């Protein structure tokens, strides 16, 4: 629930690299509706996110079936390149193991080739939205970063929980210093 800002930033990578990312809230649907309406009001544009739509049954038997079905549906209907799953109090408290569920979904062929499902643990009762932002950024690095042996003379700037306008300023400052840099996560600036 706290990763909304990260999810938003991430979702807008498509402005740059042709990537399409759908944040996904693994829990009951209220968490998803709440952060979507908050971000939609804040950014004054529609913000999309999926949800595992937990019911009492899922709370008792675990959310594995819900997440696998959600992954299958999302890749079939909305066709993102990446699904960024974040957990909620509900799925954290019942103890859903997201990497295991993702592995099972891949085994069952629910994740098309070349597409990714990444995750971050974000219970609301640990830390604040800043913690959630950091967790999701770490999730992105963990799942997507690969060493290729080459060294680039560039600096990756990985800020904490900041607004897109702050990212724009960081980029400008880096440019003024003559420092080749790339901001990560890439913000919705132009």
């Amino acid at each position: 629930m706290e990763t909304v800002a990260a999810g938003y930033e991430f979702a807008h990578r498509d402005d740059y690299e042709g990537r399409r990312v759908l944040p996904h809230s693994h829990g009951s649907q209220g968490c998803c509706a709440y952060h979507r309406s908050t971000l939609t009001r804040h950014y004054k544009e529609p913000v999309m996110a999926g949800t595992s739509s937990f019911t009492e049954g899922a709370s008792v038997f675990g959310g594995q079936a819900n997440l696998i079905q959600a992954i299958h549906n999302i890749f079939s209907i909305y066709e993102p390149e990446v699904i960024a799953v974040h957990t909620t109090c509900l799925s954290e408290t019942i103890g859903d193991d997201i990497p295991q569920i993702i592995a099972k979904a891949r085994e069952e062929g629910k994740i098309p080739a070349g597409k990714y499902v990444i995750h971050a643990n974000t219970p609301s009762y640990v830390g604040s939205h800043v913690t959630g932002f950091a967790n999701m950024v770490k999730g992105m690095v963990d799942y997507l970063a690969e060493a290729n042996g080459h060294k680039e003379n560039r600096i990756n700037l990985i800020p904490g929980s900041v607004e897109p306008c702050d990212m724009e300023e960081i980029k400008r400052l880096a440019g003024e210093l003559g420092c080749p840099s790339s901001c990560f996560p890439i913000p919705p600036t132009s």
Partner: protein
Amino acid sequence: MAVKPDDVHSTIVGLGADEVKMELLEKYPIKVARKRAKQIVINRTDPKAGPPEIMANVRTIPGIITQRGCTYAGCKGVVLGPTRDIVNLTHGPIGCGFYSWLTRRNQTRHKSPEDHNFMTYCFSTDMQDEQIIFGGEKKLRQAIQEAYDLFKPKAISIFATCPVGLIGDDIHAVAREMKEKLGLIGGGQVQVPGEKGHALCGRLPGAPLSGTVPGNRHGNRRRGV
């Protein structure tokens, strides 16, 4: 598929209504499509059977983007939350309280300067992992006491959230105890963990309370907001 004369009124961008529906369903996986087909109907009245019935009030399919809320949202945002003169306390982690902060959407005017208006506040027990493990009843009791000491409200309503439902805090017992201790009126505790149904279900547990909460110490009924 040729457009039949009786379909002309429902023609969209040169497609007949059936074609539009088929195109909408094409993307769904087969099982999901079967269910969604009942949720998209063509408004074509059969003289014998009457208007078609649309499938509604069923659980959302996981992964389908939805704007539906949770039970807590219905209760906090719709039923008891927008009451000006009682303290509405969310028993749960801070996210639930923050995202259901009503702010400017629910404006109200109090009758006199002495009158209570808690609309702009957002009360929460701010549960941490310690409460998830050892129980949150103690913190709830503290929060009620603190809210009472600061504001002296005539009633306090408590909203449970997902983790509270899971760990099994007895908020009814805490509410009874604090009600007696502080002399509050009304039985304002509502057990609404978010996973139980969707936003509309939250209105059901709230409904029986509407008769008891908006009163005062003398038992006079008056309007809530």
